[in-house]
C-alpha cells in the first residue's frame, strides 16, 4: 500500500513537471483537534507546491512536500500502564519533539477561474512520516527513552479557499481545511489547517 502510494505521488510529480506547471510555497497553521488538541500546540508548517496547468484552469492537480514541528502543551503528561497485572502503574511521558514530514497529492477546483478573486475547492491526500522523541515511564514496568521513532499516517484534507490573482504570473491563495487520518500506525490525527500559498506561473 505504501509503495503504491509513493509511486502514485512520484508519477504525479513527474506529470506536473512534464506539464511545466506552477510552483510555489505554502505556509500553514496546523491546529490539532480531538486527542491531540490536549497534547500538541498548534504548529506552523511549510510546504513546497507544484501544480499542473495555469491559474485560469478550472482544475489543476499537483504535489507537495512539507514539514511541521509541533510542541507539546506541557512538559510532562501523567500517563500510566496496567500491564494486565491488576494494578495501575502511575507514570509520565515527556515529549521532546514531534515532527512531521508530509508528501501530498493536491487537487484544486476553481469555481470562477476568470475572476481576479476566485473561490477554490480542494481535496488533498497526504502521507505523513511522524518522528517522535519521548521519554516514557511507568513505575516498576516501563522506563524507555526514544530518540526519533518513526510512524506513518495517511490522511485526507478537504479544503476551501479563495484565490487572488496578483498579476499574470503570481497568485495568492488562502483557505482552510480539515485533515483527517485514514490509517496509520499512530493515534489517528485530526487537525484544522489554515493555509496561505503564493504560486508562480511561468
Amino acid at each position, binding site marked *: 500500500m505504501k509503495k503504491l502510494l509513493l509511486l502514485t505521488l512520484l508519477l504525479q510529480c513527474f506529470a506536473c513537471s512534464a506539464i511545466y506547471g506552477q510552483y510555489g510555497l505554502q505556509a500553514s497553521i496546523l491546529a490539532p483537534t480531538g486527542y491531540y488538541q*490536549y*497534547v500538541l500546540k498548534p504548529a506552523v508548517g511549510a510546504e513546497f507546491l507544484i501544480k499542473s496547468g495555469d491559474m485560469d484552469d478550472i482544475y489543476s492537480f499537483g504535489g507537495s512536500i512539507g514539514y511541521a514541528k509541533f510542541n507539546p502543551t*506541557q512538559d510532562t503528561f*501523567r500517563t500510566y500502564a496496567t500491564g494486565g497485572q491488576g494494578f495501575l502503574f*502511575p507514570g509520565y511521558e515527556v515529549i521532546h519533539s514531534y515532527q512531521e514530514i508530509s508528501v501530498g497529492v493536491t487537487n484544486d477546483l476553481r469555481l470562477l477561474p476568470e475572476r481576479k478573486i476566485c473561490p477554490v475547492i480542494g481535496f488533498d491526500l497526504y502521507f505523513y512520516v511522524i518522528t517522535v522523541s519521548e521519554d516514557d515511564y511507568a*513505575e516498576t514496568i516501563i522506563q524507555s527513552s526514544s530518540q526519533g521513532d518513526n510512524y506513518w499516517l495517511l490522511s485526507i484534507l478537504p479544503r476551501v479557499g*479563495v484565490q487572488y490573482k496578483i498579476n499574470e504570473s503570481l497568485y495568492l491563495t488562502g483557505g482552510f481545511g480539515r485533515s483527517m487520518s485514514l490509517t496509520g500506525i499512530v493515534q489517528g490525527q485530526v487537525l484544522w489547517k*489554515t493555509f496561505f500559498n503564493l504560486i508562480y506561473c511561468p
Partner: protein
Amino acid sequence: MKKTYVYYLFFCFLIMFFTRCSKPYQQALPIVQFVSAVPYGLADTLLLSGYITSAGASDVEYTGFSFSNVPTFDLLSHQVLLNSNPDGTFSALVTAYNDSTYYFEAFAANQYGYTVSNVFKYTVPAAKPDSAPCNIPRNTIIFNDNNWTPASVFGSGGQNPYGSYYVEADFGAGYSIDIYFNMVPTNGEYLVLSPNNFVGYNGSHYIATLIMDQDYPFNQNGYVYITQNKDGSTTLSFCSLVVNMFSTNFPVSAKITYH
C-alpha cells in the same frame, strides 16, 4: 478595493477561528472524588466509595483506590483497581483494622492519563468491648453447675495445635480449658467452632475453638466474648457452651481475666 478588504477581513476571522489555542491538558483528565470510608458488616472491613465528577476528554477506563497508614504514599500502596461504571460511582471492600488510622485516595484514568482525589483520613473505630450475656461472677468457671475459681489463667502465642494464640484456664483437680484463636483476641465476639472446622475467620466471624483437658472439644455454636480492660488485662467470657465428656454433655460458663 473594498471587496478585497472584505475578503481580507473574512480570512483574518477564519485564521482566528481555526488556529485557536490548544486546550489545557488538565481538562482532558478525569476528575475524581473520594466519597466515603465506612465500616462494613464484616469484621475489619471498610466499604470505600468514589465518584467521577468529570470523565475528561474521553471515557474513563479505570478507577480504584489506594491507601496506607502514612499520609504520603504511592498509588500502588494497597491498590484496588476497578473498571469504570457508566454512572460514575465505584466502590470496593478493603481490609482495615480496628482502632487504626488510614489515608485513602481514589483515582481514575482515561485515554489521556490519570488523576487522584484528595487524601481522605479515616480512623477505624475500636470495636466495642463485649461480654457474655449471662450473669457470672468474675474469675469463675461454672462446670456442670459447680463454681470453680481457676488456679491460673494465661494467654500465649506461638506454636499451638490450633490458631496462633490460646488462653488456658486451669481450675484445679486436673481440669483445664484451652481456648484457641487465630489472632490475639481483641474486643468482640468469637464464634465457637469445633477443632475440625477451625479457621481464623469464616467470612462473617472470627472463630474460637475450645478443648477441655486437651482431649474433649466443645460443641459448635455459641460465642466467646472478649473485653479488653483499661488496666491492660483481658476478660474472656462465655455462657453455657457444651462439652461432651464420657458420652455426657456438660454445660460450661466462664468469666476469666488474664494478662
